[in-house]
């Protein structure tokens, strides 16, 4: 397995720890990281991203508190056996917020609704199907 893509965008105004947190959650949700997979150590990740190790530790701590990651003493940090899933209401809220951002971008670029939906479906295939494939391969 190739190492997970954990790039951050220095131009993104979101705090870096938040970007790492979101990114790990997405990788878990999309199946790029599966239960029990190792994530890079705090120091490795800090060197890779050229950021303060304290920032990585903060993101990992939040993910561990949320039950997404677990630390095994002397072994490293791993995706938890059963990473939590958002409740129905929470999921709907997050989806709506993201959909509003996407719809606004599409409108601003002058895209039609059909075109926007087609591209959403394509993106879905790109991320979602990878998850299915990996599950099948297990």
């Amino acid at each position, binding site marked *: 397995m190739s190492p997970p893509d954990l790039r951050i965008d220095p131009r993104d105004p979101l705090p870096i720890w938040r970007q790492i947190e979101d990114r790990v959650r997405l990788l878990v949700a999309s199946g790029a990281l599966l239960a029990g997979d190792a994530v890079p150590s705090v120091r490795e990740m800090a060197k890779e991203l050229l950021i303060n190790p304290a920032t990585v530790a903060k993101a990992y701590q939040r993910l561990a508190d949320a039950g997404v990651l677990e630390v095994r003493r002397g072994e490293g940090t791993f995706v*938890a056996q059963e990473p939590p899933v958002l409740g129905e209401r929470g999921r709907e809220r997050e989806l709506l917020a993201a959909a509003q951002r996407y719809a606004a971008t599409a409108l601003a670029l002058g895209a039609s609704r059909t075109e926007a939906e087609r591209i959403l479906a394509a993106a879905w295939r790109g991320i979602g199907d990878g998850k299915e494939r990996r599950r099948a391969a297990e």
Partner: protein
Amino acid sequence: MTEATSHRLRDVTSAASSRAASEAAPEPVVKIRHLLVRYGQQRVLDDVGLTISAGEVYALLGRNGVGKTSLLRCLLGQQKPVSGGIELFGRDAWRERTALMARVAVVPERPEVPPEVPVARAARFVASLRPAFDHDGFGARIERAGVDPRRRFGELSRGQQTLVGLALALASRPELLVLDDPTLGLDAAARREVLREVVEVLGDEKLTVLLTSHDLRGVEQIATRVGFLAGGRLVLDLPLDELKARFRRLLVQRGAPSALAAQAGRVLQERELAWARELVVQLGPPGDFSGGELDADGMESLEMDLEEIFLAVCEPADSKRGAEVAS
């Protein structure tokens, strides 16, 4: 996850994080109180106070000529302040400067190695002053920089010179590392190499870093705390996370009353765009406000990066406005 592992991660976080460290450590690394520096009638620094705790990466930011260099000179015992006190490791920075400088290493904008001196000889010279000099660490760092120790300093590229300066500073095993805009004038690749070497030592042992820089993106990647100097005063001094949580760019309908925005916080900038009015606001301390409410009122609330915050805080032409921003 077990209680024990949770604690372990928390330990990692707090060891490097400023706040926990400041609560645990009684002695801050740097303590500046009521610092006044005057050249003739001009007050360059006026009643500046700041504290840097062990393990912190403190970025001191401000426009050119705002007194950053004066502050560093006072801190390093190179200049006696008109009044006010600076303590390093709990001792007076001016009176005990000779003893204190053994615990501090500085990387200036241009490293102070004569151009005709070979790198290896510069290292021997520094090692003669610093008994704890780490020859292996120095060798590894200059090798990563692609520097042959037999080369004369003046033959190296600007980026390599800075990396050698940094390697000399780090090999001295300082407790406080002062980086005085070391990446100024370097290209993106060289800035990246410098950043990589700094990240390498963060979280190591007990190193505290004070840096000034024009590379705000780099600052954002490593700083734990940020101070803004404007008009001779330290107008803001916050952990980076809190700083970013306290500034928002709001987009409201043109002609809409700005009372709504003013309710959210102090308006620092305001301008009319073709399709909206844009306001930059500084919010009160956490708890005073929730971003959700702002969105509900038909405003769009955008996070700001450090560069945008810097411009909003430090750009006002009249220094008095900057001074009012104090949290």
